């Protein structure tokens, strides 16, 4: 980091700020206008196929009984 010049700082900050201004558009509920364009751009950067392994890891079996206490009211 010691080697980063003022110009390099400013260029990186400009780029990061530009990207940062897109994020709220991606996270809005609107899908038209700039928000829609931002969402499409963001989607391009993601894998085309969803990660199915994650979905499997997230599942819980239906037949697991709940753990209940031995305490008597």
């Amino acid at each position, binding site marked *: 980091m010691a080697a*980063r010049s003022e110009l390099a700082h400013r260029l990186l900050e400009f780029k990061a700020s530009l990207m940062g201004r897109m994020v709220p558009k991606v996270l809005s509920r609107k899908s038209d206008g700039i928000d829609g364009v931002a969402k499409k751009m963001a989607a391009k950067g993601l894998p085309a196929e969803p990660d199915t392994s994650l979905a499997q890891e997230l599942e819980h079996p239906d037949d697991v009984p709940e753990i209940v*206490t031995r*305490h008597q009211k």
Partner: protein
Amino acid sequence: MTMTDPARSAGKTKTRTGYSVCTICDIGCQLRTTTEDGVVKKVEQHDNPLLAKNICYKGTAAPQIHNHPERLRVPLKRMGERGADQWEEISYQQAIEEIAERLQTVVDTHGPEAFGVSTSGWNTQTTHGLDRRFMNLLGSPNWTSGVSLCAGNTAAVSRLTYGWYTLPDFDNTKCFVLLGHNPRKHSWTPIYNRLDSARARGATSIVVDPRLSEQAEKATIHLQIKAGTDAALLLGWVKVIIDEKLYDEKFVEEWCVGFEDLKRRADDYPLDRVAEICGVDADLIARAARMYAEADGAAIPWTPITDMQLDSTSSIRLQCILRAITGNVDAVGGERFFGLNPGYRTESELQLHDEISPEQRAKQLGYSTHPAYTYRTAEILRPHMKKVWGHEWIDMVMGCHMANPSELFRAMADGDPYPVKAFFTLGNNSLMSYPNQHQILRAMLNQDLIVAHEIFMTPTAMLADYVMPGDVFSERNHIADSWAWTSNLTLNEAVATAPEEASSSFRFWTDLAHAMGFGDRFPWNSLEEVIDYRLEPSGTTFEEFRAEKYMDVQPPKYRKYRKTGFATPSGKVELSSSILGDLGFDPLPYHRPAPATSDEFPYRVFSGVREDPFFQTGQRNIGVLRRRVPAPHFFVHPDDAAAEGLVDEEWALLETAHGEVRMKVSIQDSIRQGHIRVPHGWWYPETRGEVDLAGAFVSSDAVLTVDTDDVLDYEQGIPHFKGYPGRISPCDAPEGMSSITLGTE
């Protein structure tokens, strides 16, 4: 009495899906929750692809948690002896009235400082600062939380150095350093995802950990140090970086004070000394220091490890110092000062810290002894916070004006330095959440009034006079603000119906204030009203926010200090801390050796470790989660296991000078020889009624540690969890264990 509406306005439609902020752990993943007739049926990934990976199997277990057959649904009043676990069901209104009356008696008899609160904002979420508001109006400064030894204290200590608390600029970083922190796919998931993304972009990583953890396996450099020697390691890094002129000379010259003092202190830590302390090769330490310093944007994400050490303040400050001298503070790819969201009032503003007198603030336990995260330092920082951030009181990660928990429990147990006789615990199994569990038990048995606000019966709640059923994230509207760690706001929608007599923490504090005669200072009748009040500066309401977005993210601004300076007394980064110096502490960071191992206690024990299916002491009663880790395990190196006669999956007894616990053994090559890893927060809910306090003293790591002054961090009063002496031997299974625990199902 005015009773506000319970959080049960939703649930009218048959099927409903809403956006949620999961509170099953403290990371706050954004999810979608679906209900049928007000009952949670499914939790799934967010439909925005940017957020969709931020989910773990704890989150998808929300239906099992929220609908659990033994969830608390009705207020309970103790019958018989404290801890007898015998209860009478009463109405919410009766409970509030009786609690108010009994609390007033304690305040009248012993003064308002005799009232203590321990809470976990992560679990309760909807307090909106009203707990502190209630206490400040009453006159008690004795609020504490688990954040006193996990993240909140990091925030408070970071402010001593540069007046704020950082979060990595993950999207742009070229190198990151994990000090024992081990985000995994199902634990701290969003951070795990961001670290993986950074690696995919080519970022290097340095992992410092006595274990070959999951993150260490992926690291560019793994420094397998002896537990608890982080401060020495980081001082070695500082020396390398200064000696080799790898620091940002311009930033140091313009924006830091105390560099020459720091240089002299670092000279006390030549690499051969550091290597000996840490048990790691000196060349590898130097390589790691260069990798961090030379990266064009490097980050040291928050870690719980250095929050829980004998020299925690120095360890945390060293991370701040490294960020600063390498020019990574508020820089692209380094660490950001997010600042506050200008559209959302802070919790601190609602807390009314000017309402409690300076005399009462000075009675805060820890104020005069271990002041780093108490009112005492917050008072010193007031003008500087105001100048830079626009507010005098900013409660970052809830951790910047806390009482010291060890002193609180001592006051509760022994009346030292004054009696604390009423204790409220909210979303916080306090008995098992702090060191010296035996003292905490004594403290609780010595109370005139204990109130627990929980969703399940816990060992702590079993000791209470009143147990109030809480709500869960699917049942309430909320906008989460991450307590000033970031400036992001995140939407949570009520889609389920809360139990009739359950209350949000907002409702609990509001109704109690009304019952005690100062309800006029709690003018909001619903959660939506208080959210609207907080959103007022943005010109929107909760409903408008909800209609437009599920997240509010402020555009990033970097190097803001060029306009404002830093919120410290000097206005600069204080490598040598004027506040610590003025308070009578060493203004420079140092390494403090942990209690030495001996023939009697030859192993270094590190505890407080989180496991994927659980958050803190929770979820051991959730079938689908508990069956993933049915019993607690010590991690032991194969050579140590052979030496002690330990067998994989058999039981062992771990003893320290202060206590003993039993767990199963997991023999692992990945752990450094001579070390034993202990998971946090184990008890056995299924044994309630047969084993004392549902096994709270069988396997809880809080039994192993004490909090006497000789083992506390000087500045904060933090206990040492990372590398204390212990011994281990084979033993029989504890009595009363269930077939789940024993593995005989």
